[in-house]
């Protein structure tokens, strides 16, 4: 029935050919214009599971981590350059980094973080004191310890800095500030950094650091390139040759990737065009053949326009992946083309005959892609819509338009004998045995396949940037790879209370050595009040008078006036001011405060940076720890989750797609044997792909999933055509069509294996292996197995 509808349509449109061409042309032009003007969304978030899932939340939190969006600049001086020169040049370069390219440039906390800072802290110390501090202070309150401290203090007054430190000595004669130094340790956001002249300087004194912010999005390649060129100009005009400057930012990765893709596209286009041209010369050599190769372009335009109607903001990834998937659309056209060219009777009959397997193929492919609707990744759901529209369009173009273009007058040139001469018919038993051995080997190697969820590994990282990352890490420590614990609250105080809880929990554990937290110097007001109560309790029961007396008498004997330590007496007697964000900003800690506090007025977050280790993750996930108001964002955890999501998605996809395809095949063939045989190319292609990748230790990533879909879609098509051909006695054109469509796929997508870019290379490799295995499986294994069965049934 379906065949007769197709035949009738052919006859109907053959009488209205100009109208068909004009209507098709109008539709394609409109769709092409829509496609060109499509507003593509380049946000990588569409490649992550849905917004409400933990993975998406983790991703968004990681975006808020310090340094994730900043420009990091390292200045390295040569051995013979004077130390102060490095700081001078750093300042000079930082001064030239102005808007619109850079909005905020930091070279260090500044020189204000000096004496005034300690004097201020000595005054607010009671608000920060912990139980441990109290124990340490109590030990210093004996006559002997007080005398020793005052003697040391007297000796320090002789030094050049003695005069400048006298105010600090008066408010803190017993050296409580040493406990403060311990608290400041938790503010060291760059592990191997030391401060010189208020600048970030490496331990060997050879490197200085500039941390800058830019308004340009990391994905904005054009502005990113402008910024990099501008920065190079600044270096040329400001920095002498004795100092080398290197920059790391997301923009450099974007540009490296774009440049690599551009170069790759040239190579791929040349190779793939050459391949397709050779195929054209070998198998088409006609005007109608050109239309076969134009089919995927038309399908891409129409599908893109279609998906833009349903989705306001189409993901660039959907279009990119979709373009790959719609490579499948050429196959329908190839089959129609060869069916028409080999037709000895009326073309409508040839179309009718080939339409059945083509519609079968389209239905199974639609079924396979339809499974993507159930994916947790928005991009895959978008991809489902895109592919389904594309497949339907490809079907219409192949069955209705192409037969009108490939006129029968062009068809007689085809020489069946040429193909039959090259027909390969090896010994069936040996072929099947060899095939089975290969399948088992691939399945075994496939068990070694690992899933790589690191989105960064899909990017091209040039050696220069990789070396720079390594140098930065060696010089400054791994400050860009820390995990982040977010303490959230409706206001800052609530978030700070949660932050206190996090800090207490983490520091209780010996594994949590390198934590960056504001909690020791900016506890919540509640904690500060508790600290002050603790401080006041320390000086109760006459302890205050006793220590004041000690300071007076012991000080007098050394040479201090009796009033010398009045500021200390006031501190232990009077009220203490609270530590606030504003106060920390004033004394020179604005940078660290702004790095670790995100407060938009509606919601506040206080960040704690922790080593990205399983121990810390386990510590935060411990059942005893109350995690309310706490989010943990870790690159490692994120990678693991994405890996698992990809693996789960892949397995689910394979299972669901297989089920749908098998059900459709059962429905279409109503013969189990044919169903199993049709699946041979799919099983072979997939097993070869995972086997070779597993055996060679190549990780399976998101792009390989897309390639796997292509292999499934094409593989089942090859199977259907071959089974239909054998069972219905179609002519040799079917084998030829399968062979040619396989070769076009390899020429079109296998050429991607030549790409330097990991994502393109991944797709190319998978397609090359998968389709490379599926074609011989369809052309050799199916006939070998099916013919045998026919013989048995004949007997």
């Amino acid at each position, binding site marked *: 029935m379906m065949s007769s509808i197709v035949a009738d349509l052919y006859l109907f449109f053959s009488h209205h050919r100009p109208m068909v061409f004009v209507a098709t042309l109008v539709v394609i032009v409109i769709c092409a214009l829509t496609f060109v003007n499509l507003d593509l969304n380049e946000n990588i978030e569409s490649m992550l599971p849905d917004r409400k899932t933990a993975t998406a939340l983790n991703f968004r939190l990681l975006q808020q981590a310090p340094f994730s969006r900043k420009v990091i600049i390292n200045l390295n001086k040569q051995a013979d350059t004077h130390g102060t020169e490095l700081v001078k040049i750093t300042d000079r370069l930082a001064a030239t980094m102005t808007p619109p390219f850079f909005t905020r440039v930091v070279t260090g906390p500044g020189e204000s973080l000096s004496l005034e800072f300690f004097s201020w802290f000595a005054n607010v110390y009671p608000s920060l004191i912990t139980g441990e501090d109290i124990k340490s202070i109590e030990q210093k309150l004996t006559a002997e310890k007080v005398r020793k401290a005052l003697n040391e203090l007297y000796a320090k007054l*002789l030094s050049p*800095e003695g005069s400048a430190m006298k105010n600090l000595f008066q408010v803190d004669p017993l050296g409580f500030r040493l406990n403060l130094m311990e608290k400041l340790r938790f503010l060291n956001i760059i592990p191997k950094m030391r401060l*010189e002249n208020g600048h970030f300087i490496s331990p060997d004194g050879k490197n200085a650091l500039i941390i800058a912010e830019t308004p340009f999005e990391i994905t904005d390649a054009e502005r990113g390139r402008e910024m990099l060129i501008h920065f190079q100009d600044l270096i040329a005009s400001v920095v002498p040759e004795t100092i080398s400057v290197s920059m790391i930012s997301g923009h450099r990765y974007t540009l490296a990737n774009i440049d690599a893709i551009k170069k790759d596209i040239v190579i791929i286009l040349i190779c793939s065009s050459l391949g397709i041209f050779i195929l054209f010369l070998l198998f088409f050599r006609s005007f109608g053949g050109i239309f076969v190769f134009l089919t995927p372009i038309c399908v891409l335009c129409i599908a893109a326009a279609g998906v833009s109607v349903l989705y306001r903001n189409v993901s660039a990834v959907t279009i990119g992946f979709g373009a790959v998937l719609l490579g499948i659309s050429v196959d329908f056209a190839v089959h129609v083309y060869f069916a028409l060219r080999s037709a000895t009777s009326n073309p409508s009959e040839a179309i009718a005959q080939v339409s059945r397997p083509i519609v079968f193929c389209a239905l199974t492919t639609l079924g396979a892609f339809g499974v993507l609707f159930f994916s947790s990744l928005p991009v895959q759901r978008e991809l489902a819509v895109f592919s389904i529209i594309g497949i339907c369009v490809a079907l219409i173009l192949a069955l209705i338009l192409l037969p009108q273009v490939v006129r029968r007058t062009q068809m007689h040139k085809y020489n069946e004998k040429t193909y039959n001469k090259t027909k390969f018919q090896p010994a069936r038993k040996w072929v099947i045995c060899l095939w089975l051995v290969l399948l088992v080997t691939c399945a075994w190697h496939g068990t070694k396949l690992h899933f790589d969820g690191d989105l960064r590994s899909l990017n091209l990282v040039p050696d220069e940037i990789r070396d720079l990352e390594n140098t930065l890490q060696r010089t400054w420590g791994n400050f860009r790879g820390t995990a982040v614990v977010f303490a959230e609250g409706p206001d800052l105080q609530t978030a700070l209370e949660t932050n206190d809880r996090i800090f207490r929990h983490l520091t209780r554990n010996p594994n949590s050595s390198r934590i960056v937290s504001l909690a020791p110097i900016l506890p919540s007001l509640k904690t500060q009040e508790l600290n002050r109560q603790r401080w006041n309790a320390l000086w109760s029961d006459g302890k205050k008078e006793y220590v004041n007396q000690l300071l007076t008498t012991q000080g007098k004997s050394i040479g201090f006036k009796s009033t*010398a330590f009045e500021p200390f007496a006031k501190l232990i007697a009077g009220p203490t001011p609270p530590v606030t964000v504003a106060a920390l900003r004033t004394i020179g800690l604005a940078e660290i405060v702004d790095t670790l506090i995100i407060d938009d007025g509606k919601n506040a977050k206080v960040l704690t940076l922790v080593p990205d280790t399983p121990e810390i993750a386990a510590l935060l996930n411990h059942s005893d720890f109350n995690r309310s108001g706490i989010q943990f964002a870790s690159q490692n955890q994120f990678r693991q989750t994405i890996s698992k999501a990809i693996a789960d998605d892949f397995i689910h996809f394979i299972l669901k797609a297989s089920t749908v395809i098998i059900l459709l095949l059962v429905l279409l063939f109503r013969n189990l044997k044919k169903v199993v045989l049709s699946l041979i190319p799919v099983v072979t292609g997939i097993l070869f792909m995972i086997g070779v990748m597993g055996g060679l230790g190549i990780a399976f990533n998101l792009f390989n999933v897309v390639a796997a879909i292509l292999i499934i879609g094409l593989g089942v098509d090859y199977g259907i055509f071959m089974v239909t051909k054998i069972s219905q006695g179609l002519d040799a054109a079917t084998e030829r069509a399968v062979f040619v469509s396989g070769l076009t796929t390899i020429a079109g997508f296998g050429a991607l294996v030549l790409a330097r870019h990991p994502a393109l290379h991944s797709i190319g490799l998978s397609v090359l292996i998968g389709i490379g295995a599926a074609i011989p499986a369809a052309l050799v294994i199916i006939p070998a197995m099916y013919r045998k069965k026919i013989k048995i049934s004949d007997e």
Partner: protein
Amino acid sequence: MKPVIIITLVLFLPAFVLGQTGSEKSDNQNRIFSEIARSASQVETFSCDFLQEKHMSMLDNVLISKGRLYFKRNNRLRWEINYPATSGFAVNGDQAKRWEGDTGRTQTFKVNQVPFIKVFTEQVFSWAGADFKRLKKRYHIQVLSETPIRLMLLPISPQEKKYLANLRISFATDASYVKAVEVHEPDGDFTRIQFLNTVINHPLNDSLFN
């Protein structure tokens, strides 16, 4: 008669200074700075004893210390206190080391890491190199006396004003070296350092600064 002259001078010297026109003052200053620069340019090394008096409101008595200062061109300096206790520091380029005689503690560090050492060495090196361009950026410089030269430096930055009211520097008659420095703080405390037995361009062993 003598006291009258002194009183007259004290009363009218400021008026005399103020009475000068801007360009006269500037010319005068430049001449003095040139003189200091000319003398300083001939100094490769110097060493001297010093006597430091700290007048601090928190102490009953003036804190007196004695020691020795060594200077060599290319940013080398040694400041050692020998009385009442031994301590000090040595600077060689951007590297520095300090020691405390009683405890035997030594510490090696970068000059830029310790603000006080940095400011101190900057002052010594600026004067030794007669780097008036740099000094003028940080201080308003007044000439208190021309023979021998005495200058007063008033800090410009509000940050520095918190710790320093003024610096008074007295030169030797031939302006070849600094004879005394007074550091006055905003609260009235001050430190006076007198440099004695100065020896210029005598060879100094590099090990002194390491």
